[in-house]
């Protein structure tokens, strides 16, 4: 398969993830959309790395995966904290900053 096939697949995944981020109302659902988008980015990195014959993109993708792990851990901790304080996981109802 040519490089553009992998890039198009990753673009489709990215758009679906973006759609999820925009439309979901539950915070965990939004986080799942972000996961899809990051996953698409990783496919892009590995595809470019393979077609350029260097391992740097794969190392970058490894870092991206591990940073995603930290991001998910903290994001879900914040969801748990918000749930404990506000009894809700709906993003629209978390509007404390609104005056």
């Amino acid at each position, binding site marked *: 398969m040519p490089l553009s096939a992998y890039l198009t697949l990753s673009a489709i995944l990215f758009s679906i993830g973006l759609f999820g981020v925009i439309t979901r109302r539950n915070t965990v659902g939004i986080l799942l959309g972000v996961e899809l988008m990051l996953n698409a980015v990783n496919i892009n990195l590995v595809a470019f790395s393979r077609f350029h014959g260097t391992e740097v993109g794969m190392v970058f993708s*490894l870092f991206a995966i*591990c940073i995603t*792990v930290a991001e*998910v*851990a903290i994001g*879900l*901790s914040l969801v*748990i904290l918000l749930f404990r304080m506000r009894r809700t996981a709906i993003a629209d109802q978390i509007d404390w900053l609104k005056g």
Partner: protein
Amino acid sequence: MSGYIPVLIFLALVLAFAIGGLVAAWAIRPSRGYASKAENYECGAQPIGEAWVQFPVGFYLVALLFLVFDTLAVFLFPWALTIRALGVPGLVAMLGFIAVLGLGWLYAYREGLLEWK
């Protein structure tokens, strides 16, 4: 890529076994349903309350620790492949990484995250 052909054959066999078994059972078995068959434990105690309960948050804390040390284990693998070529500097770098994450273990131990309350 051709090295994965046995894996694919194995995968196809696994799927065929699982789906084939279910389909064959569905085609052969008689279907006579009655109310007590649909209970959770057909000849056991009646369950009390709902299965959807809120779990204690300790599950999440243990999962967090698992996630961090899972990441540590991932990085040990490429290091182990190159340990001879890299020598002492690689060892020092990896020990630094393990020491930093060891501080996380120390934190969890001191704060009592590992104790099940």
